[in-house]
């Protein structure tokens, strides 16, 4: 059985849900960050799948952009997390409520 478009989309949906769950449920910033990457890659998978099945390269071009931006985002995000950790000795989201009110 050759996998069809809907198989890819189901996998992508699962990945996205896993990522979202991670973002919402985990407390450690690093894990949340990793979950975010998972969500991004779920989107990438969708784009590549559509590109393949629709014979249109636009989707793949889009994916390149997303990978590039994600790399930059990781660099900045990790730096922020490290800086935060140095300052507060913690990377847990429930400790980061200083901007409330």
């Amino acid at each position, binding site marked *: 059985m050759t996998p069809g478009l809907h198989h890819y989309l189901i996998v992508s949906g699962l990945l996205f849900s896993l990522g*979202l769950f991670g*973002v*919402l449920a985990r407390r450690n910033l690093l894990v949340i960050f990793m979950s975010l990457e998972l969500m991004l890659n779920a989107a990438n998978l969708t784009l590549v799948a559509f590109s393949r099945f629709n014979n249109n390269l636009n989707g793949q071009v889009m994916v390149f952009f997303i990978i590039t931006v994600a790399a930059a985002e990781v660099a900045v995000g990790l730096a922020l997390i490290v800086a935060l950790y140095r300052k507060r000795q913690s990377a847990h*989201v429930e400790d980061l409520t*200083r*901007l409330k009110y």
Partner: protein
Amino acid sequence: MDAHAAQHAIAATPAFSSQPEDLAWFILLLPLIAAASIAFGVRRSSFLSSTLSISATVVAFFLSIALFLAFGVGGYPAVTSPFNWIHVGGLQVDLGVTVDRLSVLMLLIVTGVSSLVQIYSTAYLKGDPGLSRYFGSISLFTFSMLGIVLADNLVMMFVFWELVGVSSYLLIGFWFDKPSAADAAKKAFLTNRLGDFGFMLGILVVWSATGSVQFTQIGNVLGGNPGALGGLASIAGLLIFCGAMGKSAQFPLHVWLPDAMEGPTPVSALIHAATMVAAGVYMLCRAFVLFQAPGAWPAHLWFLGNISALDIIALIGGFTALLAALIAFQQDDIKRILAYSTLSQLGYMVMAVGCGGPDAAMYHLTTHAGFKALLFLGAGAVIHACHHEQNIWKMGGLWKRLPITFRTFVIGTAALAGFPILTSGFYSKDAILVAALDGGHPVLFGLGVLVASFTTFYMLRLVIVAFFGPYRSEAASHAHEAPIAMTWPLITLAIPSIAVAWFGLGDYLSSHFNPHFHAHEGGGLFGPFNHAPLAAVFGSGALLFGATAAFGLYWGADSDPLPARLGLLGRAMRNRFYFDEIYEGIFVPMHDMLGRLFGAVDRWVVSGLGIRGTHGSVELFGRALRLLQTGNLQTYTFLFAAGVAVVVFVATK
């Protein structure tokens, strides 16, 4: 009509060709340049300031003479309007100057008296630390006054009108550290504002009815259709008159002028005798065409019949003349006697305008400017000599001590009293009495004669008490004649108070207001006795009567015999008929009450409900909303994701 044609000829010439009337712009701007240079430049040096101010005014005076020779003597009226100032909708206001017999004459008066007063001030105010400020203010005043004189439309006149108010405020309050001077300045300004408000409304009425604010255009509209003002004719006239009522201090707005004597005496001579107070009368004459419209009232005021604005103006003028003369009877302050005398003479002029004799009013304005400035400057010399003593009962015997001041003061008094043949005042006063007779106001004629005798009486009282008899105080016995910078202007002003130079002025002015005027046969020095003997004889009789009474009562008197004889009336006169007290009892509390009411509305409704209310409710809402913020990142993320889900669900359904 040939005046009109000449004007068209002027209008047709190119804007930048130089006309003799362009001189008027220089005359107008010279004092302004002096004032600005003093304010921004040479303020630190009082010598430079006074020199600059005086030379600007003197040059303006000589230019005025040139203009007078070009236009006053057989010239044609000219209006230049080179600057289009405001053009909004139907309103067109130009910056233009009117050069005709009337304005040229006023230019001479304003610049001439201003020059002499400034020269006098250098000695009178010697060593005063505010001398530069004084000369700056007086230059500003001269500029404003020239603006009123030259303005060719009501709006421009109104602007300068207000400027005169401001500079008069500065000059009355020159010694502002004295509370009475500061109060007097405020009173003068506010009282004038009251009249100016009416003036402004009048300008609006005239503009809406005739579609123009320019004097010649208004004249053309009203000339073509005398009923153009419709039912508003009388009201428009009275509103315009309100402005004159404030500036020329007519009842009931007369209260500021006596208080304005708190300013330096030369200021009283310039502003409160010769120029600013004359502005009201001048304006009435300039806008006289408005008052010639037949009297008419709006429908619901039908019971006023066809009383014209002029009738009411004549009554107010006559009443002011009588009232002020009565008050002057019982004043002891030399400057206040002169102030009430000025009020009385202004009432005279306004009465002349009301009787339909603007030429007589302008005639008296001109002669009065000369001799009243002379009298004020003389009073200043007396005050200066007596170490700032102003009570005439503490002077006495000054004729020996101050020979020049005494002689010139007597000339001024004779002119004010209207001594026949010899003095200018006789001719102008006679012109007013004739105007009252010709205008069909025999009652006002009688009143004028009465006031003339009163004038003689209180002026002779002043002269006899202050200059004759024994020295009544230490200061008077040590008095010494004023320096030459003060006596010289006195002598110069005494010359025009004598008749010779003036008896042709009446015809000069009459031919301005009436192009078909022909001089009377048998004019000259004895003219009044020839062509209107009734007025001349009554006027001379009034003088004789007043003089006899004054000599009988005051010659050799040690104290004022009048209070005992007049009883209650005398006390009322002494207390200025309680006008200040009445105003303080009625208008000031009313004004304060209104002020408190508006203050409360502002505090509780505008500020409380409006501003604090809005601000408070917004803040309350904000405080409630911020409780929704938990600060937890994941709560936000969840709400965000849930929101996206809802949007996607709704969008794809």
